């Protein structure tokens, strides 16, 4: 029978679970040990940050919190490959990418602590990134729209969205990669496949062998990478970003990783998945494998590790304090960001709310 079209999904891995290189053609950035140490440091910071967040939640100082444990290579790989002028449209747990782009831990705490100011990222380039997006996969279309804006204005910028294995089932994801393919938009769509969407395992999510192959539906270059291997993630990101910046259009990257923690602090994963599975996943820990490799390169050791941990802990303590010292917004804040200028009708409600609030004291 004649063949109308043929496709392959490649699998990219450099560093295996034991911290051994499985291929020789290291990308340029990975040959630079300073860079690799920097990436390692951010992965560790992210983990320390995450541990702190969970502790805060456990002591009643945060609401629900979505942990990023196990995603450090994927998230830092994504964030570190991007240029400042690019735009990130994350879902809700990509702290590793966001810290790289200037989001402050205190902002993360604010957000999960029930305060909108957490979304008002103060530092560039995060300040021009999107805020967390709770409605699953919607951020993919915001990235596509941003990419379209860049194309219309002739800017050499790329929009990056991240979405989960679960989120890759939602219409928004397909819609985003489809219009990006049709219009050759500078978009990189990254599926962070951590095997679970709350309690729903990857196998119930889709019958596709890989999630990367969803990109074929949109005619896009698509690749599956070991999402616990920072070198693979960053390399795939760099290639995709380069293509996008060069006007060659969008790409799909599937990062295969694992959600080592509960879905959020409101979840109890023991209800739906076995211990062994999680123990196996720990064997593929992205942080540990990079550390082993760095140590083998003599670029890292126990002393430096200790210093890093202390440094991270200090940073987080400082951030936690800043968060805990923050005052609740005034009641007027409920009204003041609904429209650019408050409509007369709403102004009356605002006055009512303020007077009730006074009365309450």
């Amino acid at each position, binding site marked *: 029978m004649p063949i109308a079209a043929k496709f392959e999904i490649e699998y990219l891995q450099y560093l295996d679970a034991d911290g051994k290189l499985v291929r020789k053609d290291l990308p340029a950035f990975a040959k630079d040990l300073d860079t690799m140490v920097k990436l390692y440091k951010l992965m560790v910071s992210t983990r320390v940050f995450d541990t702190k967040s969970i502790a805060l939640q456990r002591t009643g100082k945060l*609401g*629900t919190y979505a942990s990023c444990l196990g995603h450090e290579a994927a998230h830092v790989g994504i964030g570190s490959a991007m240029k400042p002028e690019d735009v990130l449209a994350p879902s809700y747990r990509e702290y590793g990418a966001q810290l790289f782009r200037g989001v402050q831990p205190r902002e993360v705490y604010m*957000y*999960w*602590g*029930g*305060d*909108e100011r957490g979304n008002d990222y103060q530092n560039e380039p995060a300040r021009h990134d999107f805020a*967390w997006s*709770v*409605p*699953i*996969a919607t951020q993919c279309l915001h990235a596509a729209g941003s990419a379209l804006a860049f194309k219309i204005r002739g800017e050499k910028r790329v929009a990056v969205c991240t979405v*989960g294995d*679960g*989120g890759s*089932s*939602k*219409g928004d994801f397909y819609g985003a990669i489809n219009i990006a393919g049709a219009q050759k938009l500078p978009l990189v769509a990254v599926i962070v496949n951590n095997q679970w*969407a*709350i*309690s*729903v395992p990857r196998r*119930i*999510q*889709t019958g596709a062998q890989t999630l990367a192959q969803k990109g074929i539906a949109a005619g896009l270059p698509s690749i599956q990478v070991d999402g616990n291997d920072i070198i693979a993630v960053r390399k795939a990101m760099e290639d995709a970003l380069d293509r996008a910046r060069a006007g060659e259009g969008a790409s799909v990257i599937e990062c295969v990783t694992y959600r080592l923690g509960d879905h959020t602090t*409101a*979840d109890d994963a023991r*209800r*739906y998945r076995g211990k062994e599975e999680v123990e196996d996943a720990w064997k593929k820990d992205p942080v540990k494998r990079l550390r082993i490799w760095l140590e083998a390169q003599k670029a890292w050791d126990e002393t430096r590790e200790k210093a890093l941990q202390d440094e991270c802990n200090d940073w987080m303590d400082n951030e936690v304090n800043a968060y805990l010292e923050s005052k*609740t*917004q005034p*009641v007027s*804040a*409920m*009204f003041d960001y*609904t429209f650019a200028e408050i409509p007369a*009708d*709403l102004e009356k*409600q*605002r006055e009512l*709310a303020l007077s*009730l*609030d006074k009365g309450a004291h």
Partner: protein
Amino acid sequence: MAAITLIEAVTQALAYEMNHDDSVVVLGEDVGVNGGVFRATVGLQEKFGELRVLDTPLDETTIAGVTVGLAAQGMKPVCEAQFEGFIYPMMEHIACHAARLRTRTRGRITVPAVFRAPWGGGIRAPEHHSEANEHLFTNIPGLRVVLPSSPARAYGLLLAAIRDPDPVMFFEPKRIYRQYKEEVPDDGEALPLDVCFVLRDGNDVTLVTWGAQVKETLEAADALAEEGISAEVIDVATLTPLDFDTIAESVQKTGRCVIVHEAPKTAGFGAEIAARIAEECLYDLLAPVERVTGYDTHIPLFRLEMKYLPSTQRIVEAAKRAVAAS
């Protein structure tokens, strides 16, 4: 018979009906092994299998469209939006198909489906987990919009919703999911979907509400009683089609009406009730109708949300204003 919470009453109703009717199936995100993020479907997959209690891919459009397809084939699907804030991608299938197939086909194809969703604020949840957006469905013909506000009503109304030959939106006030327990016999007795429930008789003012605000409204009635004001409390329960007669009767008696809901004021369903009063009970009114509602802003994240939700105090004050007027 042990006393159960509202959420347990939901589970009990689902289990009862699945036991007695093979065509009842449950579908949604995390409804299977996990038993739902609020435990509403806990134990059901074990009892009824993976197909009758189906974890779906993460796409609400899929859930809603598949629900319509199941119902069109004579099944009685009960699907779930994990939170009311994630119901938007279901709307095309609800408005254009679930609510319309009977009309479109002159009765040849019908959609006996239930769309469940936890609803409302007040649980210190993240963004999009605290909306009260029942208004979206109340102007769509062919739908029933139901909000139970006690374990017994959750049980009886959910049974009725599943058995109803037409689509029902079933919003569960999550703030009172576990607020208190009451004995709810598992006898398969449904409650009617076409009446408002008078929770408390009174003569001086009518308090009309639904969902979690029933709590504050009853508290307000208590507080008013202490000041010698006798408040009648009506739980609308089924918003559409509306049983306005029960409300009208009460307003004829009291001459005053305070409507309480947590959705934003403008074009919330309270507007419909106030409008009916202005049309049909004008000559009975001794005081302007009052609405005590959420503001016309998004419900804030949880540090401020209790400043948004109508308080008992606000209801009491509105009722007193109404009683003072005339």
